[in-house]
């Protein structure tokens, strides 16, 4: 009874190779079906993300080794196994379980604490279950992985600090100014990727009223349409600014598109409420002096990146606590796994003693016909207690031995002593 993981990740495998090894949904299903044909009675889960491709295998029988798995992956993607093998790692037993828990808890991710990986692990397990590739061992391992990931998330602050510029802009800065976004006017200046990603976070937070102003009106319209907003021509930038509560600057202009004088005109036009400006453009879209105006909160990409770095440092600080949880849970899972390996022997031992007990009990009660119901119950209870006391020492020894691995020697001794069948 063992668990093994074989795979490659961003830690030592170039992205070009990871891309060639990646599995989409259909390929995953096909590969799992193929696995079941090649490695009978070996449970498998195939985890394929941007940063890793891993196969988790488990079973009571001998598990395929690293070379066999490399061959399997190479054949599927029509690659040379020799090219693949140097990049693969293989972990067994507790190391494999610890690795799975670390991956699910996002401790092995490129961005420590990123939240998507747990969903990807769950999806991988779900896909394997749908193809009937999983069994009791991987079921227990992946259930435990989900629980461990949640424990790490709740007992440490590893997920609390965001680390991408758009997410920090919204979670750490915009949330400090606004309580809600559904009643705020959001103005996006520019229509690039950064604008789109920031809008995604803002819309997740409830932003509804979105205006896009872009030099190329058609691109602005496309972005506005994608987020159910409206586009305004570039010439109306200052009017749009007057009505805005939250502004995101993302243009590629070579100089500020809003100067202090422009902003003073906006103020003179009646702008009196707090304004949050997230200037994500380089060079900046807003003159730095605008940040000095009352009720204006202006942040440049430098401010946001500094916050990202501090957040990353905060996450790193949580790493020892998260690892301690992983170690504790790995130990608990493995002890449970080892106990499970002793299960059949324990059950046979109990059953083997139960039959003679029942036989002797029946014989005794038949010889004492005058006993009333209460006396019979007392005798039954005494037999049960005696059996329990006789079984307690061997079972306790099994439990103790199971803490450090499957107690093969003890199981073998018990089987021979009590003539238990395999």
């Amino acid at each position, binding site marked *: 009874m063992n668990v093994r993981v074989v795979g490659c990740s961003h830690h030592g495998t170039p992205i070009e190779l990871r891309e060639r090894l990646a599995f989409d949904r259909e390929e995953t299903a096909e590969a799992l079906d193929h696995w079941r044909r090649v490695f009978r009675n070996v449970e498998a889960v195939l985890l394929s993300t941007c940063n890793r491709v891993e196969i988790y295998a488990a079973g009571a029988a001998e598990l395929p080794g690293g070379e066999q798995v490399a061959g399997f992956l190479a054949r599927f993607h029509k690659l040379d196994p020799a090219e693949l093998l140097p990049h693969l790692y293989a972990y067994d037993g507790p190391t494999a379980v610890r690795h799975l828990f670390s991956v699910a808890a996002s401790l092995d991710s490129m961005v420590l604490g990123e939240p998507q990986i747990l969903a990807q692990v769950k999806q991988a397990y779900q896909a394997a279950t749908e193809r009937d590739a999983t069994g009791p061992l991987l079921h227990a391992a992946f259930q435990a992985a989900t629980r461990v990931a949640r424990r790490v998330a709740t007992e440490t602050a590893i997920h609390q600090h965001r680390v991408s510029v758009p997410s920090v802009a919204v979670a*750490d*800065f915009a949330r400090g100014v606004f*309580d809600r976004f559904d009643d705020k006017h959001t103005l996006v200046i520019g229509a690039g990727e950064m604008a789109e990603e920031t809008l995604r976070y803002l819309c997740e937070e409830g932003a509804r009223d979105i205006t896009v102003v872009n030099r190329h009106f058609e691109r602005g319209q496309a972005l506005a349409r994608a987020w159910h907003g409206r586009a305004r021509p570039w010439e109306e930038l200052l009017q749009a600014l007057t009505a805005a509560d939250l502004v995101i600057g993302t243009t590629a202009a070579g100089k500020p598109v809003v100067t202090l004088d422009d902003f003073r005109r906006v103020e003179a036009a009646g702008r009196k409420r707090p304004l949050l400006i997230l200037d994500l453009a380089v060079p900046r879209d807003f003159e730095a002096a605008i*940040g000095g105006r009352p*009720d204006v909160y202006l942040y440049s990409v430098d401010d946001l990146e500094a916050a990202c770095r*501090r957040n990353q440092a905060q996450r790193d600080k949580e790493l020892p606590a998260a690892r301690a949880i992983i170690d504790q849970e790995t130990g608990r899972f493995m002890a449970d796994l080892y106990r499970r390996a002793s299960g059949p022997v324990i059950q046979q031992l109990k059953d083997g003693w139960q039959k003679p007990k029942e036989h002797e009990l029946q014989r005794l009660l038949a010889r004492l016909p005058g006993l009333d119901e209460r006396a019979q119950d007392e005798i039954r209870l005494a037999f049960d207690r005696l059996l329990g006391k006789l079984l307690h020492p061997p079972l306790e020894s099994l439990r103790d031995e199971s803490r450090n691995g499957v107690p093969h020697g003890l199981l073998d001794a018990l089987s021979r002593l009590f003539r238990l069948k395999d």
Partner: protein
Amino acid sequence: MLSGVHIICFAASYSIVLVLEISRLVFRSGVRGAVMLAFAGAGWIAHTAFLYYRASSLLSSSQDWYLLAAWVLVLIYLYLTWFHPKQHFGVFLLPLVLGLVATARWFANPQPLAREPVSQAWGIVHAVSILLATVSVLVGFAAGIMYLSQVRRLKGRRTLLAPLRLPSLEWLERASGRAVVVSTLMMGVGLVSGILLNVINYRRHDPVLPWNDPLVLATLGMFAWLLAAVVVGAIYRPARRGRKVAYLTVASFVFLVIALGIALGMGLFLRTQHGRPRTAGPRATSFAAPHPSSLSCFHPPAARIGGQGRPLDDSSSAFILPPSSWP
């Protein structure tokens, strides 16, 4: 058993909670939130028991009034900490609570005041509304200070990730604005009920409070300030947005401190006749400071605070009254 509760019991609990709140700025802990709530809850229960054992004469002294204001403020703290556990409300609210308790313990007059039964209802309205107005001003002040702290943090980017966690500016602005409106309404009710009390006393040929009493003038000034702020805010919306509303709450707090200072300093530096203890006899005609023998019918503070004696059953002393600190 709870009759043995002393001010120090709940004051100590609140102090521990404040220390725990401050420790949140220094290090993380998984159990601290529960410990804080437990101490604050235990302190509040002790506080409630303390007030309960004075119930028959509750609000009959300046000391009671301060303690009741602190009790309401702790209740607000518990509510906010329960529903917003990540925010550091306690750092701002608990010093105000401890300030009120300390004032009650060392500065406020524990002597109960006697009033005629005819003024009991208006006395309740007057005392409770002024109490709520005061609590609103304190809550508004805390929200205003939090707002200004948050502005400072947001403007100075270096401190943005400092461990102090505050609600958004929008939330704080809303809380400050509502506190100003509530305190204005309550202060208005308190003033009107105070006038009615005076009218009742006048008709009964009892001594009335002169309109030029320093405390009355300070309170009127505060009410005028609050009313003007609310009216201007209603007419001109930007006046109740941003930092303006925070400064308004701070100014209201300053008015409150002045008024309370006048009340506490009465008889020492200023000459106010508001809420002075009166002789026990009906229709007393003098506001002269009570002779110790004239107060003997009231339960002495030591007996009530320590729970070693029972409050007096004398109906003439058992009415809920405004504190000595307010008209």
